């Protein structure tokens, strides 16, 4: 069977993209999910705080997922669970997706359009190379989250957390509620990498100290973790000798960053952006490979699922337009990150596909106070976004109206952090 749109991943991005593709006119849509149920990582994110932008209410992860799963079911969009995509090949008009599962064995599924929504994975202790032993008891925060919230097992009792990413903060509270003692959250940078709300509600509420400019310099314990040495770092992030402190613990959680999971994307030959570790995408999340779209954390790591859903709608729209032959592929603008900005998504804009505005997502490289983000084409300032505070942890959401962009024939849109005028 040839599908109109096949979606690789049944998490929040995949679900929203599937719904939008179907609503946009794609008849045969299929979702491929490697886990045993739809919903992706939201199923283990049982905390509240999801959906404030999308539904104007505060939902937990499973509740948020269930709303989209219900939409998928209402639209009779088929999905395959426990199904792993091995590879994707571009055969011109059709993409061949090689997948396996227990029930159907090895299948080659053909699709006119593909939406990549594989999400991201956590950076590990191996990647950051903490010196010391390599015992059990060192978990990424997400792995611990799955064990506790879904399997019902505690990874340990005395906990130290490295990294102040949101999952780490959430897990500090979660483990405390389940009876563990969280001794500290250590953050290498002088600022937190998590949302302010999470610092207050997950750490301050439970008197868990957040040690900024601190790192772990040694992991103790041959078989099971016995403790960690924590030390303060200077402005250059180098350990300050003499500040070392031994903290006995049986569990170390790491919340030190997320990396988009793009093995399939890379192998297929889609052009990547080394700033985001995701594919280079356009305003409707089209990639360099015609008919292949990408959205959600596989493109760039988001901090709020609401924005993942928002982006997935674009990709779903794009895929539907593509199969109807309505997607324009003439690139009008490219985007780039100037001073203070780490990356910008989308990296390209084809104006003919734009309805009323383009939302540019970006992250700042450091904490800025009372600054603005300015968008330039050449020397021309085209738009400004004022923010009292810009944090690397909070994605900037910069909308520029079509009318403004339409005043320029082509060019590069450059985003920079500048003094407010």
């Amino acid at each position: 069977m040839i599908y109109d749109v096949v979606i690789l991943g049944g998490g929040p991005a995949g679900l929203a993209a599937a719904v939008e593709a179907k609503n946009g006119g794609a008849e045969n849509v299929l979702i491929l999910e490697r886990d045993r149920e739809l919903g992706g990582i939201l199923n283990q994110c049982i905390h509240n705080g999801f959906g404030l932008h999308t539904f104007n209410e505060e939902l937990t992860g499973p509740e948020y997922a269930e709303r989209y799963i219900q939409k998928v079911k209402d639209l009779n969009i088929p999905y395959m669970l426990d199904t792993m995509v091995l590879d994707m090949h571009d055969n011109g008009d059709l993409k061949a997706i090689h997948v396996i599962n227990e029930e159907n064995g090895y299948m080659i599924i053909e699709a006119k359009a593909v939406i990549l929504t594989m999400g991201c994975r956590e950076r590990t202790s191996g990647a950051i190379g903490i010196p010391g032993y390599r015992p059990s008891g060192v978990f990424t925060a997400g792995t611990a989250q799955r064990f506790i919230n879904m399997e019902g097992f505690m990874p340990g009792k005395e906990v130290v957390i490295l990294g102040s990413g949101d999952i780490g903060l959430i897990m500090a509270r979660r483990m405390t509620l389940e009876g563990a003692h969280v001794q500290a959250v250590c953050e290498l940078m002088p600022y937190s990498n998590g949302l302010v709300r999470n610092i207050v509600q997950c750490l301050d509420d439970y008197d868990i100290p957040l040690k900024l400019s601190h790192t772990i310099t040694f992991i103790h314990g041959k078989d099971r973790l016995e403790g960690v040495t924590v030390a303060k770092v200077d402005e250059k992030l180098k350990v300050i000798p003499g500040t070392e402190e031994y903290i006995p613990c049986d569990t170390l959680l790491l919340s030190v960053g997320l990396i988009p999971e793009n093995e399939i994307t890379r192998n297929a030959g889609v052009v990547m952006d080394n700033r985001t570790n995701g594919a280079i995408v356009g305003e409707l999340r089209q990639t360099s490979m015609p008919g292949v779209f990408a959205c959600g954390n596989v493109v760039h790591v988001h901090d709020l699922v609401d924005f993942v859903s928002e982006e997935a709608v674009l990709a779903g729209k794009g895929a539907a337009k593509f199969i109807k032959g309505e997607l324009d592929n003439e690139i009008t603008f490219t985007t780039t990150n100037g001073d203070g900005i780490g990356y910008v998504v989308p990296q390209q804009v084809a104006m003919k596909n734009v309805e009323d505005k383009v939302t540019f997502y970006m992250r700042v490289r450091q904490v800025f106070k009372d600054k603005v983000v300015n968008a330039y084409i050449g020397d021309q300032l085209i738009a400004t976004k004022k923010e009292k505070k810009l944090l690397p942890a909070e994605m900037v959401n910069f909308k520029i109206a079509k009318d403004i962009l339409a005043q320029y024939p082509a060019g590069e849109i450059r985003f920079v952090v500048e003094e407010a005028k």
Partner: protein
Amino acid sequence: MYDIAIIGAGIAGSYIARELTRYKLDIVLLDGENDVGNQITMANSAIVHAGFDAPASKLKGKFNAPGNIMYEKVCEDLDVPFKRCGSLVVAHNEYEMATIQELYQNGLKNGVPGLQILFKDEVHAMEPNLNEDICGALYAPTAGIVSPFELCIHAAENAVDNGVTLKMNHMVSDIKNHHGYFEIITNAGNVEAKYVINAAGLFADNIYAMVGEPYFKLLARKGHYFIFDKEAGSLVNSVIFPCPSKKGKGILVAPTVHGNLLIGPDAEPVSYKGDIATTGERLDYIKENALKNCPDLPFNKIIRSYAGLRNTPVRDTYTTTDGDFIIEESPVRGFINVAGYESPGLTSIPAVAHHVVENIVKPMIPHLEENPDYNPKVRKHLRFDEMTEEEKVEIIKEDPKYGKVICRCETITEGEIIDVIHRSAGARSVKAVKKRTRAGMGRCQGGFCSPRVVEILARELNVPLDDVMYDQQDSAYILSGHTKSVKEEA
């Protein structure tokens, strides 16, 4: 009463056990760890050396090249990934070129085939990512890369299939010499055997001291390593050694047989034989030195750093053989030492095992009969990721569990994990599954698959989830207990 007890199920003990099953012998293989090949065998450079560096006068020089030649057959029989990728010892100047000349000459003496001295252009044509100032190299086409722990595990599996009794978690605390047989005291019961082969790695000196007057001691030296993501795996095609100096062999850069890239090791003497902790200083040293030959190393692609120990023998009486393997019947009758077994021990093992069995054991035990049932082959390991499309179609039809991917990074299926749990010398821990299948060895380092692997181990071994260990029995627990205070049974 066993005929032979082998202490230590690392590469030496496991391989010798397998070699001994050629004969009708009652053999027990003992180890204090929870899995075979869990110490030195687990953390080394994974290189099958060509054999040009050790002097011909030493056992290392004697066994290296012959061991190397046997690798194709051994790895075919034991179904172990092996690649004869060749090695280069690179020189940055005339002085180092002179050393390379010496190595070349020594290699000829050791019978190393195919050695060539390459000029600058030839080196760079072969390895375009090396430092431009490299002016020549010694090329050894017979050098290779192997998976050392898989070799050890499969040798142990084959030994058990051929009749060896494997006793893990048997920590030897004493040995009584009853003159005619030995009684080995362990924390899990005593074992009696007429002969003992001491292949206890770092602790072979302590083991020997239980029966005889110590005549050697083993110094532990720690080596640090980094493993890079497969994306960096093709940076070099062959093993790149720096030119050896008085300071030591230096930091090598090598592809791994599974497609990753490895750099290391340093050599730091340590007093505690369990000190496998990495230090920031030493890890930085590895990086700095690896860059000298390979300036484009992508350090942001590192997925793991670790340290392993090796054991350098020092003889008290025969100082001329310092630093060489100790492979001999000891002064205690019936007690054989295979000690000081460091590099090139992995490479030499097929030749060393043959030597131990044919030249040491056989003369000791009269009227040894051949084992007519000896089968040198392990049952084939089905590696899903390496199969052709047609093979994949077939295997999932045969066993649907091969259609369920557990480790996403390395594409390891549930079928493969179940298989290694139920084989002889099977996996009992998450780390043991990782060593056998690579589940958890990829870029996410088990983040996604470890909860699933725990689940599969618990189910297949019929134990509760929180009884599944990461590595060592009892002490390396993964989960501390249930959430919630209610008691729950199914």
